[in-house]
């Protein structure tokens, strides 16, 4: 391996990094400033309960709109279309559960954590312990997913591809998060959330306006363009692409819908935010603000997702090919619309999102441990508040270290299911118990424990037994299979189970009477707010409150001396400055793009290896799928562009055999009287097949034109020399034929079936292929060890690229600026970056590689080794050989179905096709 193919970052990593650092500095200053007020437990856990509803609504949106929401939903819409939109609806409607049933009642009855509410009228220690276990599990799962996501994000945006460097980034994220939490407490993290949410919504709004603007504000036109650029056509505008495959995926989707709608109101880090406002009324305003902001944001995401599919160069295929896969949709759209600056801004927002969300999770988990477990379970409530905050801070450090360690281990693993798991646990373990304890008088301690542990354990066990963890190529452990539970999301089972267990636990435990007086008190407090925890600054935001007669004295005593107004003004100013910078960045980048890029200019950034989920997905080690006898001397196989048939040129037998790819059997044999058929090339319409013909004596050289509808030869085009592997241009109008013995290409007009031009290239052209956009042709020239690059408009040779010895076959990558060629005598494959026309990697393969082709999604290259009787599989991402598959005797060519599921290898001496099952 001499290098890496073009891969990695979009935009300018330095610029992206600069904007990241700027954001980090601004938030650090904010956190440091507000930290002067973080003295007491109420300060640390609940920001002194001094945030207003709108402020907290913005902050809670910031907590909720994690990178999964921002990048994930837009990306899912870009790639899977409508099914990505379905997530956002579940995420939004869920807030009505919080608004109607949870927020105010929780705010009135609790103090800092979910455990406060659940243990109110129960036996405290076991219930608090259960609440803490559930909180820690949910928060840690969520944290791990965020940290692992940070690694992928920086790979995309900062061009950090090495594992060590990604681990370093995760560690830096962890350190920043610990700093925010330790120094700023809840107040600091809340301000970070407010800044981040403001920037996020402004950024998303600009992208949306810009994208809609480029379609004249016509959403229908935007949708139409997205559909026309998708391989699925209008199916991207309809449900079912992702979830509609079969009955299992449909039920899985319903299960996910249940987890989303019930999970949100059970997420501990969301619940804890309701304590940062002075009253239930402010909690109500919080949720209403959150509903509007989150709803509007998801409407933006809908436009951003489809706009990414419609506008990004290369469309959904390119998006999925980037290092961040579908997460790259929004950044790519930003790059497409606003160039490097807008990309840098959107990237910094995404990075900020991860930072802010991990900080919010950490403070929740540390509060739950210190307040529920340590102070109330271990110390029986006999712990002064200062010590408790100290414990919380130490816990935050421990959790930070755990999250960094876990995040580094999880780097590159598929841990996306952890977010779904966090929602499922929240919906099963937390929500049923919260609802029961708020609304059901008889509910008792046994019910709480059965419901919480039942929901938690059933969720985790079902996930472990699900395909998310084992049994499929996308699982966390793809190599083993203990997936006996068919659904990825357990909520459909675990949520009803948790409700049932809560009921049964209560009615079956006769001895465990619920405390009716306590329930009366709790209900009264919940509905009226009597005796509820007040703001530390009643004059500031709680002025409408009556005198806080029952307000417990804040441990730590004296009220804050300095007025927060000054700080707040400064923070508002800094938020404003950042928003201003954002606007400036967008305007400057807009003008730069408009000024510098003529319409249609290739502003394509560097590309990464790619994965397309709508074809394949191919696996690293294909399986042997069977052998099809096709008659003697099959020298070349071609698959029609529509994937229905494989045509095989049987050289000495002077016939073409036709294989129906649906049944993998020969369905026709077509005599070729002109001479021995050698190579085949289909027109894009799949109807016309060009057959090159020559004999060993070099007395015959011609091309037969076959109509595959009738399987009749409709024309014969004489050629000056032995015609090798030809190619039809993307528009179908021209056929380029390499003339092996005259060092030239014949250009054949397909309307008249006559040679209209000749191009001289280096000797001796073996194969030709066109670039994706059709502007270039590439020939592999055997004798000269060169690849020629030809301008297809002027028919001039633009460049010659030295490659390995005896280049035979050449293949253009489906969506990267990458061409691979097989070097017959060197036993290698050269990877050429077509942006620079240089070889960027040389991969050793088998002996005498004769033919090379790419998987339709570009994930793998397949090389046929004539002398080793094998097929080599190369991972485009790493340029490593992932498999060497034995095939028949003297294999000469390979063709892959457009759906990426099967490949056919012609075995010249065996008289067979080997079928490779590429999806494992």
């Amino acid at each position: 391996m001499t290098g890496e193919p073009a891969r990695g970052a979009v935009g300018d990593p330095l610029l992206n990094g600069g904007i990241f650092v700027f954001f980090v500095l601004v938030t650090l200053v904010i956190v440091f400033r507000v930290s002067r007020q973080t003295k007491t437990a109420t300060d640390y856990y609940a920001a002194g309960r001094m945030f207003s509803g709108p402020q907290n609504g913005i902050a809670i949106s910031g907590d909720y709109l994690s990178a999964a929401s921002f990048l994930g939903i837009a990306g899912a819409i870009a790639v899977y279309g409508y099914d990505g939109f379905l997530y956002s609806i579940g995420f939004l409607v869920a807030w009505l559960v919080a608004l109607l049933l949870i927020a105010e009642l929780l705010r009135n009855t609790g103090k800092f954590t979910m455990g406060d509410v659940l243990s109110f009228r129960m036996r405290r220690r076991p219930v608090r312990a259960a609440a803490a276990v559930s909180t820690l599990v949910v928060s840690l799962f969520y944290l791990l997913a965020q940290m692992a996501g940070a690694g992928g994000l920086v790979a995309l945006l900062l061009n950090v591809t090495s594992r060590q460097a990604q681990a370093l980034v995760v560690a830096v994220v962890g350190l920043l998060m610990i700093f925010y939490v330790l120094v700023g407490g809840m107040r600091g993290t809340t301000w970070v959330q407010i800044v981040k949410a403001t920037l996020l919504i402004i950024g998303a709004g600009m992208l949306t306006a810009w994208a809609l603007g480029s379609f004249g504000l016509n959403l229908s036109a935007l949708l139409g363009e997205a559909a026309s650029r998708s391989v699925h056509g209008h199916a991207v505008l309809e449900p079912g692409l992702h979830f509609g495959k079969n009955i299992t995926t449909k039920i899985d989707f319903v299960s996910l819908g249940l987890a989303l709608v019930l999970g949100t109101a059970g997420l501990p880090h969301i619940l804890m935010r309701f304590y940062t406002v002075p009253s239930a009324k402010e909690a109500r305003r919080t949720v209403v603000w959150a509903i509007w902001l989150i709803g509007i944001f998801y409407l933006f995401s809908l436009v951003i997702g489809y706009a990414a599919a419609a506008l990004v160069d290369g469309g959904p295929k390119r998006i999925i090919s980037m290092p961040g896969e579908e997460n790259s949709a929004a950044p790519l759209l930003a790059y497409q619309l606003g160039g490097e600056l807008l990309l840098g801004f959107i990237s910094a927002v995404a990075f900020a999102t991860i930072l802010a969300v991990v900080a919010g999770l950490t403070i929740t988990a540390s509060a739950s441990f210190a307040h529920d477990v340590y102070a109330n379970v271990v110390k029986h409530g006999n712990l002064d508040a200062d010590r408790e905050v100290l414990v919380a801070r130490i816990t935050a450090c421990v959790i930070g270290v755990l999250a960094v360690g876990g995040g580094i281990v999880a780097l590159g693993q598929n841990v996306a299911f952890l977010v779904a798991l966090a929602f499922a646990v929240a919906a099963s373990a937390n929500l049923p118990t919260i609802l029961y304890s708020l609304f059901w008088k008889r509910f008792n301690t046994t019910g709480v424990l059965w419901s919480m542990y039942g929901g938690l354990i059933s969720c985790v066990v079902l996930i472990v037994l699900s395909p998310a963890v084992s049994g499929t190529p996308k699982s966390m452990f793809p190599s083993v299979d203990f997936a006996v539970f068919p659904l990825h999301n357990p909520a459909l089972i675990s949520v009803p189970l948790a409700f049932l267990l809560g009921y049964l636990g209560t009615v079956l435990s006769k001895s465990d009477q619920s405390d009716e007086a306590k329930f009366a008190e709790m209900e009264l407090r919940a509905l009226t707010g009597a005796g509820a925890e007040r703001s530390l600054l009643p004059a500031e935001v709680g002025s409408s409150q009556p005198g806080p007669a029952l307000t417990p004295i804040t441990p730590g005593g004296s009220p804050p001396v300095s007025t927060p107004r000054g700080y707040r003004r400064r923070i508002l100013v800094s938020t404003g400055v950042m928003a201003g910078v954002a606007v400036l960045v967008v305007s400057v980048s807009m003008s730069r793009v408009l000024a510098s890029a003529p319409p249609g200019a290739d502003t394509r950034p560097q590309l990464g290896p790619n994965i397309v989920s709508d074809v394949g997905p191919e696996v690293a080690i294909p399986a042997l799928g069977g052998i099809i006898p096709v008659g003697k001397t099959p020298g070349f196989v071609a698959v029609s562009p529509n994937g229905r048939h494989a045509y095989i040129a049987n050289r000495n037998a002077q016939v073409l055999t036709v294989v129906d790819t649906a049944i993998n059997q020969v369905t026709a044999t077509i005599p070729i009287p002109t001479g021995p058929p050698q190579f085949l090339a289909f027109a894009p319409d799949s109807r016309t097949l060009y057959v090159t013909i020559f004999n060993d004596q070099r007395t015959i050289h011609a091309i037969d034109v076959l109509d595959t509808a009738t399987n009749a030869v409709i024309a014969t085009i004489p050629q000056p020399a032995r015609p090798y592997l030809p190619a039809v241009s993307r528009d179908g109008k021209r056929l380029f034929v390499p003339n092996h013995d005259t060092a030239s290409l014949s250009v054949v007009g397909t309307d008249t079936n006559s040679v209209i031009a000749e191009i001289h290239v280096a000797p001796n052209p073996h194969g030709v292929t066109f670039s994706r956009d059709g502007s270039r042709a590439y020939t592999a020239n055997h004798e000269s060890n060169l690849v020629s690059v030809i301008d297809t408009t002027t028919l001039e040779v633009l460049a010659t690229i030295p490659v390995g010895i005896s280049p035979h076959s050449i293949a253009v990558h489906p969506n990267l600026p990458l061409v691979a060629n097989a070097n017959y005598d060197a036993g290698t494959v050269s990877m050429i970056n077509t942006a620079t026309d240089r070889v960027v990697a040389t991969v050793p393969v088998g002996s005498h590689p004769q033919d090379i082709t790419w998987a339709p999604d570009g994930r793998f290259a397949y090389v046929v080794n004539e002398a080793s009787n094998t097929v080599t599989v190369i991972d485009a991402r790493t340029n490593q050989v992932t498999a060497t598959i034995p095939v028949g005797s003297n294999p000469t060519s390979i063709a892959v179905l457009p759906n990426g599921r099967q490949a056919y290898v012609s075995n010249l001496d065996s008289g067979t096709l080997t079928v490779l099952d590429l999806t494992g």
Partner: protein
Amino acid sequence: MSTTGPITGPITGPTARPTSGTGTAPPVDPWAAAHASVEFATLRNRLRSFVFPMAAFFLAWYFLYVLLAAFAPHFMAIRVVGNINVGLVFGLLQFVSTFAIATMYVRFANRSLDPVSSRIREQVEGGGW
């Protein structure tokens, strides 16, 4: 557990009033007394008769949408205007209904719940029970 225990210690706030249980009167549980009042029963009934049916409605409406998306994709694919199909309209209606329910609840709570609940709260906190 200062929220649940008996209130002790000095009282803060400019409008501090004597709390219950400090005098010589027989100890009355103010929570139970307030909880048994007609006013509180009214408050609870108002709240429950709004939020329970509304929660049932929006969950049913949401799951109708989820089930249609999963099991009736052809219905969702019917075009309404241009490239806008039933599924998109249905999805956007979920946004509209969410915004509408949130707005309705806030108006309801401000008008029908808050006056009652603050009256009860003031009485409880002021030792009225």
